[in-house]
């Protein structure tokens, strides 16, 4: 054996790589631990309070017979309305910005910057805006539809940004291939770009929606009631699950605090369901070809 042969068998210690890996583990662990503690605490407190009464009965001053039916229904209505309003508007805006807008034009750049900024505006500001322009300005009143519009405005920037990312991720070679076959701009967008972007758009939209139905501040701002004993209608007074939770936590009796924990569990389940819808849509569209 020649003396020049370097030992290649001994593994080198990659100290920095190892440290970085530990840092990553720590970050993930911290996030998971926080979540586990929160969920665990809530389940311990409220688990036994998730009953048929909570799901099916209206609220009451007596915690033993108090339910969150109007709030649960309103949250579902709000979620559906927000989805119905946000997705078409958001996807259309994203398509305009990505596929049609001339980025050299000042107004398109102005639009882009503003959408980015709007995504960072605190939700309470949307509440004030809604109170001034929707509840009072156009005189819609303190109704569920007004709440849905506020939440739509709140989620729209997020949906637009997520949809733009999804559209931008469609490779340009796909567009070129479609154009080269004699497709029009509309056909390229409708038959190639949009279907390819749907998984990303669905994920972004549902995540934005999950955030919207957890919002409390803007709804309180426009006057969601804290005590509603009747089923909500679109043009009637309303409450929502986060508002109901907020209200129960403020009550002096300990039982209401446990009831609030139970309502939090219901809210978490609704969010999990929404997220799984996003995952189903994504998988379905990824498998379609």
């Amino acid at each position, binding site marked *: 054996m020649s003396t020049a042969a370097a030992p290649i068998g001994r593994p080198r210690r990659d100290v920095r790589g190892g440290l970085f890996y530990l840092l990553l583990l720590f970050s993930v662990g911290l996030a998971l631990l926080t979540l586990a503690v929160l969920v665990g605490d809530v389940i311990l407190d409220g688990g036994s309070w998730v009953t048929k009464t909570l799901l099916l009965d209206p609220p009451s001053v007596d915690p033993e017979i108090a339910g969150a039916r109007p709030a649960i229904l309103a949250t579902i209505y709000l979620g559906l309305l927000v989805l119905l309003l946000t997705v078409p508007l958001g996807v259309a805006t994203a398509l305009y910005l990505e596929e049609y807008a001339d980025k050299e034009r000042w107004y398109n750049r102005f639009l882009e910057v503003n959408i980015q900024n709007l995504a960072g505006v605190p939700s309470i500001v949307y509440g004030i805006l809604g109170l001034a322009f929707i509840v009072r300005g156009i005189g819609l009143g303190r109704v569920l539809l007004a709440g849905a519009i506020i939440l739509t405005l709140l989620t729209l920037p997020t949906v637009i940004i997520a949809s733009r990312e999804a559209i931008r991720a469609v490779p340009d*070679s796909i567009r070129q291939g479609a*154009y*080269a076959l*004699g*497709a029009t701009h509309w056909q390229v967008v409708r*038959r*190639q770009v949009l279907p390819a972007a749907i998984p990303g758009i669905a994920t972004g939209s549902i995540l934005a929606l999950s955030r919207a139905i957890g919002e409390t501040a803007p709804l309180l701002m426009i006057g969601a009631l804290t005590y509603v004993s009747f089923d909500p209608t679109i043009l009637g007074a309303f409450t929502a699950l986060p508002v109901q939770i907020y209200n129960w936590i403020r009550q002096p009796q300990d039982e209401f605090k446990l009831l609030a924990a139970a309502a939090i569990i219901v809210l978490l389940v609704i969010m999990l369901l929404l997220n799984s819808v996003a995952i189903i849509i994504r998988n379905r569209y990824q498998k379609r*070809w």
Partner: protein
Amino acid sequence: MTISNPIHLAEPMVERSSGRRDAIFKVRELEVTYSSKAAVRGITLDIAPNEVTAIIGPSGCGKSTFIRCFNRMNDLIPGAEVKGELLYHGLDLYGPRVDAVEVRKRIGMVFQKPNPFPKSIYDNVAFGPRVLGRKDDLDGRVERALQQAALWDEVKHRLKASALSLSGGQQQRLCIARCLAVQPDVILMDEPASALDPIATTRIEDLMQELKQSYAIVIVTHNMQQAARVADMTAFFSVDIADEGERTGILVEFDRTDKIFTQPSDQRTEDYVTGRFG
């Protein structure tokens, strides 16, 4: 993209069976500029039917830019402008009343990197006929296109499978089939085999020999052996560097392929084809 009044381009006037060699394209003093910088200029040549015309030359000489003029793909690039004349069966493709979408139905294109749509094999081939509203006998159109592209036997049992499950060479033949399904008059190929292995490349080259019986083929290639193997005519492009350092693609020589490779009339061509390009 400019949307002008679509006009119906004249049906191909060339009788394919007769031995006439009327040019499909007549290119006269063509110049392409990107934001007023010339990428290629002064190109004059004719493209004949039932022949393979190769465009060779060093990187950055505007081969791809040039070939993308034929189906107006440069329209999609902001700031791109085409000057000069590009006649297709006598009709100026850049005339004021010509619709780029209409042009692309007649003049198909295969790209450097196989770019199948993320759909099934069937839907890839059916896309062209579908967007053109030719939905009658779609199955037949798909089958004929796949047969012409020599892919049918490999995929006939799994037409519903994802096009992305095919190998690179199969994907490229699928892209050729997709292009044939539109029944074009001309097929443009922009380095169609540069991402493929030698066996897949041979299959594409054999295919080109088949297809030129029915189509005019224009191919850009950086592979000189490929040009020598497949092309009837060869255009050699080079880069002209101006005093200010601006680089522009120019056509140096256009002739029969054997002449280009054995007795070129320009020194620059000879240097390039003999590998003495500096």
